[in-house]
């Protein structure tokens, strides 16, 4: 299935903050299917790029172009933040919240949320307040909340940054299942192994600039830039 809001095109996008350039200029296209992984060292602009794509950051120059009506576009995407936003509600109501916003009846929304919680393997008491969840459970809750609207595009910012191996494996399983269902995924990660396992293609950022882009196998087989080579080798850059 081809998402009607895709392809996403960035044209000469630049993000300035306090006069400092933190991103760009970047021109790229995200289309088709699969998982795109954004890589790069700290401060390279990974989070800013994802946020600019999703419309959380207003770009200083250039264009972020989705297909279709602007009103509609963001509701058909979802974003999982590095630190999950916990609402002061029960787990089930946190997950059902996007559907409530869509005007779905509470019972129906809760039912869908329950299903989604099961799908991501969130085996906790759903009526408990979200604050009692552990780190891994919080991330799964955030994923369930992101997926409950069946978004066409899913952004994730370092979804496994603070998780152990077991939780990381579970999250990766959920992401692969979502991709196989046709969800276009764009995520950032520091975990090179994770990038290797999940990515269909890679965007490599350095100092706010997109310096390499390519398919998984090609990127890891022979990175074209010294920065990317150093990054995947785990070298400490000067």
């Amino acid at each position: 299935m081809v998402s009607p809001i895709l392809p996403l095109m960035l044209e000469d996008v630049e993000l300035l903050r306090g006069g400092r350039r933190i991103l760009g200029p970047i021109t790229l296209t995200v289309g088709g299917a699969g998982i795109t992984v954004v890589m790069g060292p700290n401060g390279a602009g990974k989070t800013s790029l994802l946020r600019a794509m999703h419309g959380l950051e207003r770009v200083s120059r250039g264009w972020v172009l989705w297909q279709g009506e602007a009103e509609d576009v963001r509701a058909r995407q979802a974003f999982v933040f590095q630190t999950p936003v916990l609402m002061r509600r029960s787990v089930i109501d946190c997950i059902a919240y996007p559907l409530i916003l869509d005007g779905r009846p509470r019972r129906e929304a809760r039912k869908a949320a329950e299903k989604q919680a099961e799908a991501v393997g969130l085996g906790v008491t759903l009526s408990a307040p979200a604050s009692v969840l552990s780190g891994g459970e919080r991330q799964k809750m955030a994923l369930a909340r992101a997926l409950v609207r069946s978004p066409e595009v899913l952004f994730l910012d370092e979804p496994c940054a603070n998780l152990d191996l077991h939780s990381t494996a579970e999250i990766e399983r959920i992401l692969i299942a979502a991709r196989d269902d046709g969800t276009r995924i764009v995520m950032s990660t520091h975990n090179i192994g994770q990038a290797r396992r999940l990515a269909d293609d890679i965007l490599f950022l350095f100092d706010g600039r997109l310096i390499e882009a390519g398919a998984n196998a090609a990127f890891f087989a022979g990175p074209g830039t010294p920065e990317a080579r150093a990054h995947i080798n785990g070298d400490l850059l000067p």
Partner: protein
Amino acid sequence: MNDIVEGLWQAARLVVTLDSDLAEITLRSLQVTVTATAIASAIGLPLGAWIAVNRFRLRRAVIIMLNALMGLPPVVVGLIVYVILSRSGPLGVFGLLFTPTAMIVAQTIIITPIIASISHQAIRELWADYHDLLISLHATRRQRIATLLWDGRRALMTAALAGFGRAIGEVGAIMIVGGNIDHATRVLTTAIALETGKGDFGLALALGFVLIALAIAVNLALHMLSGTERGSRW
């Protein structure tokens, strides 16, 4: 010291014997202040949330005004409401002066800025937490405010209780606009002022203790109903 002991003793006696005058003025105190708190909350809570969520040109000025109005002198509010509601004032035709309605109006004016200001503080913190999520989920402006009000309800209850506390103990404004008429507009605070004026400190203190007990009872009741202090719930 004697006066305080006698006041406590008299308060206990009035409560135990269910003194009908005491019951009447206590219920009227509650009636006026609960109504005023409800109206002020209906205005102040959404207003506080709205200011927290929206960026507009006079935002800073509005916040400063609200904070300043928290210290609004009740006597001045009373005087202004009096002049407006007087038969010779602009709203005189309604004949509201010296009625419980006039007292509700005055108290509402006094506590709306308090409730709005405290709820603004609380909602602003919550908004910082929720901002990215709500924008990402494409919540409408109205949905954002509704969500913040609902999820911030514990803090907002505190705001409403602060307003209630200020109103239930207020005497300056309601004395002026209510007139402290026996069996019509006399409430606990104006009765205390009256008894103090008569030099009957024992009775005045007794009423004072009833007032304090009432404030505590209302707070306790609300907290128990909403289960604030239970376990890990919000």
